[in-house]
């Protein structure tokens, strides 16, 4: 299977601050999909599959009707969680194309939070028994947001491994620094300093404002087809070398076995084995930053550094720029470019392999994307240069 399917086209809308999109969410999805298909150089009618993730509201049948697909042969949404499924969505499309169930599958994510409200917004009213089902166990105690849940994991990770606040700061600084090279980025022209980071208000310890991804509107999409078909299209194909989704044998966010984890140990084991490579072979990496602390855990669990060594691994500018010791979130990531639930990172990896990133790393053979940490199952994908 590996390398049998490839990304043939990528596209995105302009990115907007939350609630500022002049377009509806469905319109944003259509723009991103159309651009990815145009980038590949195929006809829109030839798309025959849609995959998304995270409670995508723009259904495949509505898209197929609107975009004029000849037929729809494959749909899929990985179960569970949120941004943790972002690479699993690519994996689902890879499986469909590699098995021959569909020929041209678009993977996409679109969101307009002005239209539909905030992702991860706390439910539950005040007064009376309003905290239902799973919400009762945490909401009763004022634990209502992803930031608060990830803070509890990060606090324990920092405590166990001697990680300081500066390590979290380094992730934010790197994303903002790389965004200064990327005109698409919402933080382009808005650099962040260490002092401004520390002076920013606390959201929930150990997260300052700048440790938390913003909320944005926009859409992004990628077209997956067979590497063989993609050879005849506009761009050099970017093969999906391997993807992995995983969790186990311990399940559940808040158990003694999983506290302080980002749910990436199993993903790492399967990904490196399937891709026949290790962390040292990665030329450029995108890590989904919902929260900076969760990224530190994911970097460690993916095998780039021992937990005790992760602060040194990210410090001293080692993540900044195209010549970084560890080229990281080169578009600015969720913090710096835009938070389209991580999908911008898929497109950035494709740009890195094609050689047209605004923060281009030299001679990229292997580009890694690690999806949202802290929620399970985690997922990750490696893209490669065509052999």
């Amino acid at each position: 299977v590996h390398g049998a399917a490839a990304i043939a086209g990528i596209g995105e809308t302009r990115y907007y601050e939350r609630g500022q999109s002049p377009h509806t969410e469905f319109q944003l999805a259509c723009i991103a999909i159309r651009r990815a298909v145009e980038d590949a150089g195929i006809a829109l009618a030839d798309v025959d599959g849609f995959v998304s993730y995270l409670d995508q509201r723009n259904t495949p049948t509505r898209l197929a009707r609107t975009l004029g697909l000849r037929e729809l042969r494959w749909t899929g949404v990985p179960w569970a969680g949120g941004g943790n499924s972002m690479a699993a969505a690519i994996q689902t499309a890879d499986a469909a194309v590699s098995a021959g169930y569909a020929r041209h599958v678009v993977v996409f994510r679109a969101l307009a939070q002005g239209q539909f409200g905030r992702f991860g917004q706390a439910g539950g009213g005040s007064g009376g028994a309003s905290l239902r089902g799973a919400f009762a166990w945490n909401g009763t105690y004022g634990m209502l947001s992803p930031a608060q849940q990830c803070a509890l994991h990060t606090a324990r990770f920092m405590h166990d491994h001697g990680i300081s606040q500066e390590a979290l700061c380094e992730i934010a600084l790197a994303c903002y620094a790389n965004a200064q090279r990327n005109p698409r980025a919402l933080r382009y022209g808005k650099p962040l300093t260490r002092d401004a980071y520390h002076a920013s208000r606390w959201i929930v310890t150990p997260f300052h404002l700048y440790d938390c991804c913003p909320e944005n509107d926009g859409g992004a999409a990628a077209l997956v087809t067979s590497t063989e078909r993609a050879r005849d299209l506009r761009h050099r194909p970017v093969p999906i070398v391997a993807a992995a989704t995983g969790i186990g044998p311990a399940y559940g966010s808040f158990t003694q076995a999983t506290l302080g984890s980002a749910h990436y140990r199993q993903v790492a084991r399967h990904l490196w084995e399937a891709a026949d490579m290790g962390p040292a072979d990665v030329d450029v990496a995108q890590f989904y930053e919902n929260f900076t602390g969760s990224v530190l855990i994911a970097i460690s669990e993916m095998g780039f550094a021992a937990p005790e060594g992760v602060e040194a691994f990210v410090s001293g500018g080692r993540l900044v720029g195209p010549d970084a010791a560890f080229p990281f979130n080169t578009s600015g990531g969720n913090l710096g470019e835009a938070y389209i639930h991580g999908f911008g990172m898929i497109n950035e990896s494709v740009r890195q392999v094609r050689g047209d990133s605004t923060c281009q790393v030299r001679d990229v053979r292997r580009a890694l994307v690690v999806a949202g940490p802290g929620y399970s199952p985690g997922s990750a994908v490696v893209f490669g240069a065509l052999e």
Partner: protein
Amino acid sequence: MSRVLGDGWALPALDDHTRPFFTAGVLTLQQCRACAHVQHPPDDVCEACQAFDLGWFESAGRGRIESVAVVHHAVHPALKDQVPYAIVLVSVTDAPGVLVAGNVFGAAPDAIQIGDAVRVVFEHVTDPTSVETLRIPQWEIVRE
């Protein structure tokens, strides 16, 4: 005992899974009658042996703070006057593997440390809609 997050804060809806934990007045966790495994939160099936015959375990209510985060930004309007407040995860001494979320009575949020020994205490509150009395498990630090 008034509530850590204020008497106006939302209450858990009571159902077959939540009622024992939030009303018993003893730290009550789900236990499998077939294999004695204790699991939290409760579910319809035992995660250790897949039995359906599930009952309840009364814990002695001692534990340890496994993680703590101090909330400064209220994500719900009803909590605006309550920040900063601490959320903790507590391991229960007589229920290995389980973590229970909670708040801590009588401690400044920044003073709560991972590793602190705690014991359960209860917030007594009447649900205005059902008139049922809740005894919500909370924690206080035990200084050795």
